[in-house]
Structures are given as C-alpha cells and as structure tokens.
C-alpha cells in the first residue's frame, strides 16, 4: 500500500512534488514557527529549527503519505530537529496527576472570586499578559499548551507529535493551564483591576 503511494508520488516528478509541497506544507509555516518558538524559546534558534524542518521536509517529501495530516508530519520533524539540535534525549516524562492541577485551577478561580475577579477573562484584555505568561512557562508545559490550546490539536495528535502517551499530554496541559491562570490572577491583582460584580451568573 505504502509502496504504491510512494511510487505514485515519485511519478509526479519535480513539478508535481513542488506543487504538492506548496499546497500541503507551505501553509503551515506560521504554525511550525509557533511550535518551534515554544520549544526553543529563542527567536534565532526557532528560525534555524523552522528552516531545517522545511528543508528536511522538502528533501524527504517522498516519505510524506498523501492524505495524511501534513501539519502533524511537519511538527514531528520540527520536534526531532529541535531535539537533535540540543543533542538531548526526550524530556523526562512528568506523570503528575493532571486532575490535581484541574482541581487546583478551581482553587485559583475561588481565590479570584473572593477578590472580585470572577469574570477576569471576560472583562479584561489579558492577551498581552497571557502571551508573557506563556513565554515564561517552563517546558514541556509550554509546547503542550501551544499544541493543544493555540494550534487546536487533539490530545492524541499532540501525543504523536511529542512522542509521549496521551495521559502525559493531558497532565502537562493541565499543569500548564493552571500555572498560566495563577500567573494571570497575579497580573490582574498587580494591575489593581476589580470587577463591579462579586458573583452571580453571566
């Protein structure tokens, strides 16, 4: 099956390959860049990783299976390029119980409510603060939040990209979200924002 697909791909020739590369791979450049930046946390390093990812993808285009998700394929290459560039093994799997973070996020919310910030995200433009908080978030939480919350991937797809079990994606994601919410509450307090209502339904 795979052999047939590869043969078909090879029959396309250079023009066909370029057209397919343009159609399937190039539209994801911004996405790959965001992911690379989440891994490297450095603009110049991210540029290098993205460039190597795309060059490698172009050279290995015959291994891309048509009809599969090209973005996932590119992200996987991107992660491998990053790991190789750092000459390090896969990060240690953190098997923290994700539910503890989910419950802890509830406590953050309760604290926010007590101080009158219960509709924090609805009333304030927290996008700049969120960007900063995301920048400061440690790995592997940061790249996991980027994959699921910013890129909109399922836990399963993110797990394939990161090469970890789905449960690890979930626990890293929940930890990342909880840390972000704690940080944002601190920012809101520092800015002195107090919402008019103390509770109730919206």
């Amino acid at each position: 099956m795979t052999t047939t697909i590869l043969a078909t791909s090879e029959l396309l020739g250079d023009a066909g390959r370029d057209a397919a590369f343009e159609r399937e791979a190039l539209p994801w450049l911004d996405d790959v860049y965001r992911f690379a930046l989440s891994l490297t946390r450095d603009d110049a390093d991210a540029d290098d990783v993205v460039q190597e990812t795309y060059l490698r993808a172009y050279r290995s285009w015959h291994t891309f299976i048509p009809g599969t998700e090209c973005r996932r394929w590119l992200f996987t290459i991107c992660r491998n390029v990053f790991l190789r560039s750092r000459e390090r093994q896969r990060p240690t799997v953190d098997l923290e119980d994700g539910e503890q973070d989910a419950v802890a996020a509830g406590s953050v919310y309760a604290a926010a409510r007590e101080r009158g910030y219960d509709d924090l995200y609805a009333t304030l433009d927290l996008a700049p603060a969120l960007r900063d908080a995301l920048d400061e978030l440690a790995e592997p939480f940061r790249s996991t939040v980027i994959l699921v919350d910013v890129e909109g991937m399922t836990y399963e797809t993110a797990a394939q990209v990161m090469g970890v079990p789905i449960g690890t994606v979930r626990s890293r994601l929940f930890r990342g979200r909880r840390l972000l919410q704690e940080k944002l509450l601190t920012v809101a307090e520092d800015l002195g924002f107090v919402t008019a209502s103390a509770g109730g339904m919206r």
Partner: protein
Amino acid sequence: MSAPARTQLEGLGLSSSCVDVLRHLWDYLDDEMTPGGAERLRAHIAGCAQCREYEGYQACFLDTLAKLRAELGAPTELRQRLADKLKSQGCGCWHKVRNES
C-alpha cells in the same frame, strides 16, 4: 487523585457532581470525554449555577489562548531566508514562502 487532594475537596462541601466538574471540565471543554461522561457533566452544569459560572470562566480562558494563534507567526526575515534556501535546493515554489502572509 491523591488522598490529600480528596480531603481538600471534601472540605469544600461540594456535591460529588460539582467535584466531577472540577476534575473533568477541561476534558469536557477539549471534547476529550466519552459521550456518556460528557452528557453527565453537561446535564449537571445545566442545572448548577455555580458550575455554569465556572464553565464560562474556563471557556473564556481557553478562548483567549486560542486567539493568540492569529497574533504569532513566522517573521518576514525567516520567510526570506527559507525562500532562498529552498530555491537553492531547486524547489519551484520557493517564492510562495515569501508571499505567504
């Protein structure tokens, strides 16, 4: 969940359904629950003002994160450099890298 976490939850005086919302709301909002589990959570949230409010808060947070996608992208210099490299590899669509917005 660990024993201390369980004790902490019991201390809050929440119903077991409210505790389920605390534990699984993110799975629910991410559409990662089983249909049955999601339906149970949905039914409880519909009838519980406190949980409805918490759902709104968390949904708003995730929405704010998702919107960052539109703000962050590959810089122009990177696009130019990559276009040059692809051109040197004989890639016919190198100019499209630059033209992407």
